């Protein structure tokens, strides 16, 4: 499969997808509104496993399907490649060696994978990656855990895969970026459309330091069925899927279910039994998922116990001993200025000392006058 000659607009942009796969992708995008109407997730899943001809047959012989059948016949792959390049995306299809191997395990692998950067995606696919997914309406605890997982996994050199969604997904990406690691966001719609829009800035940072990926052609709008479909790609790209917080019918549980079907590892972060956001994850753990209390547990699952460690984040060597004592006090739960100051006398004005620690990135001031040790 020789990639077609590029037009000079973006020389590094490589659209290595064959005509048949591009046509298939076009068809799925064109059928997206119909797929949304036709039935629930199992129906959509079954339909997407069909060949093009069968799919068109399933569409029925009515007049409504006529433009799609006509479009399918008259499909122009050169045009599709051009649109891909214009959107700044690269692509690879099932027939391409650059296609991420993990995706081939899927029942219905995406015909074409679009990405902002294929070298990054190839690198991610070459070694074990961890997916960190969870609730959009996450709690402060959930976000804190997701951010720490993202950061520590990235610091240990493990790519972090997630879905750019609000809440846990976004926090995991941010953590990975914070540690300067690689992170991959899989989108439900076109990979050139930041979704949700409020994560546009995060989208640009991921596109800059990692890769944004989608199976649908550029500009495609995401229909509700696209989200479970996207989740299957997250699960297939990762060796281990960790669910941070999930209500009983959360999309993150779809990701976990796919991962289990693919024979990949599944982990859950335990939550408070009184919290609705922990129901899904606690049930997952009860069902045999691994209990993941932190990045080290995830690394042990992926590489074997003790094979790879979360790099210790050394305290600044020149940290004042009084500040060090104050930091220990905060970590031990003496989290107000008064309490921390009493525990670590000699730190001078405790509020000033805590602000020093804050500017060093070692503690964070939270609502209502309390400080937390940044894990």
């Amino acid at each position, binding site marked *: 499969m020789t990639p077609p000659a590029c037009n000079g607009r973006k020389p590094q942009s490589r659209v290595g997808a064959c005509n048949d796969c591009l046509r298939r992708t076009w068809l799925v995008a064109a059928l997206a509104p119909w797929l949304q109407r036709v039935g629930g997730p199992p129906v959509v899943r079954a339909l997407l496993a069909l060949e093009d001809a069968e799919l068109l047959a399933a569409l029925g012989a009515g007049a409504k399907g006529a433009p799609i059948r006509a479009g399918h016949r008259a499909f122009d792959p050169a045009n599709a490649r051009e649109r891909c390049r214009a959107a700044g995306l690269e692509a690879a299809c099932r027939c391409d060696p650059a296609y991420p191997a993990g995706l081939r395990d899927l029942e219905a692998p995406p015909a074409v994978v679009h990405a902002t950067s294929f070298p990054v995606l190839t690198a991610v696919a070459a070694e074990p990656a961890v997916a960190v997914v969870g*609730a*959009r*309406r*996450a*709690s*402060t605890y*959930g*976000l804190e855990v997701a951010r720490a997982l993202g950061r520590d996994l990235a610091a240990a050199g493990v790519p972090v895969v997630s879905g750019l969604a*609000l*809440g846990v997904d976004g*926090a995991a990406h*941010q953590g990975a*970026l*914070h540690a*300067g690691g690689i992170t991959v966001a899989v989108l439900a719609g076109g990979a050139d459309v930041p979704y949700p829009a409020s994560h546009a800035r*995060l989208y640009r*940072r991921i596109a800059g330091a990692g890769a944004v990926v989608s199976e649908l052609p550029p500009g495609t709008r995401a229909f509700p069925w696209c989200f479970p479909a996207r989740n299957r790609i997250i699960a297939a790209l990762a060796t281990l899927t960790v669910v941070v917080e999930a209500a009983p019918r959360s999309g993150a549980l779809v990701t976990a279910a796919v991962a289990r079907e693919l024979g990949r590892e599944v982990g859950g972060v335990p939550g*408070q039994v009184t*919290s609705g*956001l922990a129901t899904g994850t606690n049930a997952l753990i009860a069902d045999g998922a691994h209990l993941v209390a932190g990045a080290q547990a995830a690394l042990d699952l992926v590489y074997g116990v003790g094979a790879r460690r979360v790099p210790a984040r050394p305290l*600044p060597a*020149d*940290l*004042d001993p*009084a*500040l060090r004592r104050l930091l220990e006090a905060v970590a031990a*739960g003496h*989290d*107000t*200025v*008064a*309490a921390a*100051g*009493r525990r670590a006398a000699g*730190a*001078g*004005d*405790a*509020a*000033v*000392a*805590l*602000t*020093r620690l*804050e*500017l*060093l*990135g070692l503690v*964070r*001031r*939270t*609502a*209502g*006058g*309390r400080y937390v040790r940044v894990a």
Partner: protein
Amino acid sequence: MLARVAAFAIDGLDSRPVTVEVDIRAGLPAFAVVGLADKAVREARERVRAAVLNSGFEFPQRRITSNLAPAYLHKVGPGFDLAIAVGLLAASGQVPVEMLERWAVFGELSLGGELRAARGTLSVAEGARRLGIEGLVLPRERAAEAALVEGLRVAGVTTLREVTEVLSGERPAPAPPPAPAADDAEGEPDVDLGDVRGHEEPIDALVVAAAGGHHLLMEGPPGTGKTMLARRLPGILPPLDRTDAIEVTRIRSVAGLHAGSALAAGRPFRAPHHSISASGLVGGGAVPAPGEATLAHHGVLFLDELSEFARPALEALRQPLEDGHVIVVRGQHASLFPTRFMLVAATNPCACGFLGEAGRCRCSEPDIARHRRRLSGPLLDRIDLLIGVPRPSADDLAAAPATTTARARERVLAARERQSRRLAGTGVGCNARLTPALVRRHVALSAAADAALRDAHERAHLSPRGRQRVLRVARTVADLAGADRVGAEHVLRALSLRQHEPGEGTDAPAAATTVAAG
């Protein structure tokens, strides 16, 4: 026969001279009051008739017309009763008119002929002084208040009969009341910082706020003592000087809140409920009356549960906060009310209130963001300090009180002293009102302080406005420490009191570690 009596109408916080003309002539018995009088003034007819008869005077069975001039001015309230009654007695020859040419009268009448106090005595006395009037006859319990105005003779009397005796010279005008002692009804002696256990850090922050005149927001779970702390703020502010005290007294008097009769001693503390309307907060009404913002002038305006206040009410506070006064326009009439208060707002950190208390908060991050958004906006831009008020631990409660009101006030006074020396001639009284230009001129940072500020810019997403706020507060912290140059520890303390910046803590860029060891 025609008689004229000098009286005053309350207009906003000032008084305007009004001439009460009473004309009595032959005709069917009638009593009319004209001249844009409100209902209370028109009802004066009934009170005057009863008071005149019950005081043993004759009520002329003729046609009586009373005119309040100038006719374009709205006259409100019962303060014209006495002027109309005296005018009526003069026009019917029952009181000589000579003294009425040089004296003014002010007061409400009871049906039995006793004088009752009316609102705005101090404004009336000041108006009389401006007009060059020799003396003022008014109810006795308000004599001390009127006597605050120097160069005006004050006759405090109790009945209509006594008024006529004073005006006819039968009885000497009562000696001016002794110089009024400070009125302590406002100062709350039982509210002292010495009673507060725990809250060492919030109290220190409160001292910073008082020292620089900074508006502040307290954030903490319900029941931790935010209101208790706010109530103790007026006590640590510098005492009112005479000019300010007179201003406060005038406002309280016009609003009918001045129970005592002399000078208000304490700084006002106003805590309106969150159901208050915009006009309740900044002033309003058909005839503009001062709102809570004006009642808190020179004192503290405390808004508890800030997120519960209606947005229009909070937005209405912008002009008062910015300009130190508010202009309320109703119909063709504009009134200016002063509003130099310190704003103290209090809020829960999240909708359930327990954010930060281990495991007790049930809010999701979007809920918390929404709660913050409800607070955000132009009002927060004017607030320099964010004070976290955590629930005190058992250890905190066992500790000795951090300070007392008297000790805190001493520190505040010293810091204010430094500020007024530095800012002499700029027209700015305290650090809270430093303009960016004045910040550049007067806030000299040490190298370490500058580095700390740069770090904060990187790590804490300090916005340009947030930076200005931190600089103003750092100046105050340095003033409290008696330092001319703002050092790193002053900037750090100011940073520990900065507001949450949007995006803070979510995606901090890589560490910039220039502030290392202490």
